[in-house]
Every structure is written in structure tokens, then in C-alpha cells.
């Protein structure tokens, strides 16, 4: 029996600019990738949702703070609450933190400079729906491009996250001043993840690295499992 293509939605906010790359990368990894307009109050029938990078609503007030109130985000929050898989990339990560779906907050880079380059990140957990194709401790090369990627949580919160094993990715090099080099976190239930690096920009060796495909292919596989389970 041929396995079905999982349906993965990519939410397009005003100011999103990596939505097309995410759609392209997901399709290249054998998902049926569908754009979802931010004004939609309901999601189509989906097996996973991706919140793409960009500068939603101009990053006014704080990055992600306004996008959080868009109609589609209410639907995404309900989807996550119902155990749906949600991956936030860069601005998507910022939105998920502001929405309270992920812990912590993304602040201005410590250097105050925009960082745009390939960075090395280490996989601290290879047992999530978003990293199952990776090996524990594996180092990935994935580009970042952000001015506000400095993840922060207070001591108590950070210790809770470590105790619950919610830190999934850490930078292997100085990037943005992120607390303990955190580059990606997952929620307690393990169905929502955010990361600052852009896996959708690293799915083909021609682009310098195909390591991002490990993350997106993990998501596609997990989404496919959900789709099969629902049949």
C-alpha cells in the first residue's frame, strides 16, 4: 500500500517571507503543502501546521506579539490543544512564544546586529516528532537570519524546561546571546516546537546543506503517522 501524503499547512501572515520556501521544502519532502491565509478562522483538514519565518505585522511592539491575535492563530492554538503538530520557524517560533504555546521569549540579539549565516546546532533530543530523523548529539548546519533570536527564560523556568527535557537544539557556536545557547524548544506534550534556524533553507546540498531536511522530514513522517492513524 502506498503511504498517503500528509497534509501540512503553512500559515501566511502579512510580512511572512519564508512561507513559499517552507511550502516548497515540504512538497520536496513528499508532503502535500497548503498555504493557509492568516484571516482564516478555521484550518483545513491538516496533519501538521508550520508557522514560517518573516516579519509578521512588521514585528511591531515585539516580534510575534501582533500575529498572535490573528484569526488563524486562534485556530492554530486549538489545533495544538487537540495534540496537532505545530512547527514554528524563526518568526513562527517568536509567535508561538508570544502566544504562550512555547516557553520563553525571543529578544534582540545581544550584539544588536542582524545575524545571517550558516550555524552549527546540536541535537539534544532526537526522540521528538521534529527530530526523529536526527541522531542524539548530531551536529547540523542550518542557516539563521534574525535580529531577535536571543531566547530567554528566567532561572526557574529554564530549570523546569531542563528537568522536562524540553530543550531540543542548542547552538554549537556563539550566535545571538541565547540563554545556554538554546536554539529550539518543544512544549511539554511534545507536539509544538520552535526553532530560530531555518531548516527550509537547507534541504538541498546545492544550498550549502541538506541538514534542514532531517528536521522537516521528521515532521513529514510524524504527520504521515497521524494521517494513517486517522484513517
Amino acid at each position: 500500500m502506498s503511504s498517503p501524503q500528509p497534509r501540512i499547512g503553512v500559515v501566511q501572515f502579512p510580512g511572512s517571507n519564508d512561507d513559499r520556501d517552507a511550502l516548497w521544502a515540504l512538497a520536496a519532502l513528499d508532503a502535500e503543502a497548503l498555504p493557509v491565509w492568516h484571516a482564516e478562522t478555521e484550518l483545513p483538514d491538516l496533519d501538521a501546521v508550520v508557522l514560517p519565518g518573516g516579519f509578521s505585522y512588521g514585528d511591531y511592539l515585539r516580534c510575534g506579539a501582533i500575529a498572535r491575535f490573528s484569526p488563524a492563530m486562534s485556530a492554530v492554538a486549538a489545533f495544538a490543544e487537540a495534540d496537532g503538530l505545530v512547527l514554528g520557524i524563526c518568526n513562527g517560533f517568536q509567535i508561538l512564544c508570544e502566544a504562550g504555546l512555547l516557553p520563553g521569549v525571543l529578544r534582540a540579539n545581544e550584539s544588536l546586529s542582524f545575524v545571517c549565516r550558516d550555524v552549527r546546532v546540536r541535537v539534544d533530543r532526537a526522540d521528538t516528532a521534529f527530530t526523529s530523523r536526527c541522531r542524539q548529539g548530531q551536529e547540523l548546519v542550518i542557516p539563521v537570519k534574525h535580529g531577535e533570536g536571543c531566547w530567554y527564560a528566567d532561572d526557574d523556568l529554564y530549570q523546569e524546561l531542563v528537568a522536562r527535557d524540553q530543550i531540543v537544539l542548542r547552538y554549537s557556536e556563539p550566535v545571538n546571546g541565547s540563554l545556554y545557547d538554546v536554539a529550539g524548544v518543544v512544549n511539554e506534550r511534545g507536539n509544538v516546537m520552535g526553532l530560530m534556524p531555518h531548516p527550509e533553507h537547507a534541504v538541498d546540498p546545492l544550498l550549502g546543506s541538506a541538514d534542514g531536511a532531517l528536521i522537516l522530514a521528521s515532521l513529514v513522517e510524524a504527520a504521515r503517522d497521524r494521517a494513517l492513524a486517522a484513517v
Partner: protein
Amino acid sequence: MRATVLVRPKQGILDPQGEAVENSLRHLGFGVAQARIGRVVDLEVEAEDAAAARAEVERMCEQLLANPLIESYEILLRENRA
């Protein structure tokens, strides 16, 4: 009722903008021990009285204007003068 909301980085939170400005002020020869940079939001609020206005603005701060993980806020109220 007019309300001014002052949003500041919480004590102990690194403020790279404030540090950059602090250094620049020192370069200009000013004796500055610390500079911190926050945000000002001026609001015109429709409310029956000051207490109601303050309660309303507090809700705005909690829900949108400040992120409680990293920011504190202060609310200043004054009557509209005709």
C-alpha cells in the same frame, strides 16, 4: 482619561540597547552609571473614573503591551483637560 504606560526591561534582564547608549554617553564625557531603554505607550482611555481606567490599562499591559517574562510596566494617569 489619558494614560501613559512605561514599559521597561525588568531588573537583571540584559539590555544591549541600554548598554550601547550608556557607552555612547560615556564617550561624550557624561558620567553615566547605567542606561536602560524601554518603551512609552500613550493612550486615551474611555473609562468612568481613574480606578476603572487603571484597571483597563492594566489588562492591556498583561495581554499585549508588556511581556511579563522580561518587562515590567508602570501606568501614569491624568484627566483630560477641556
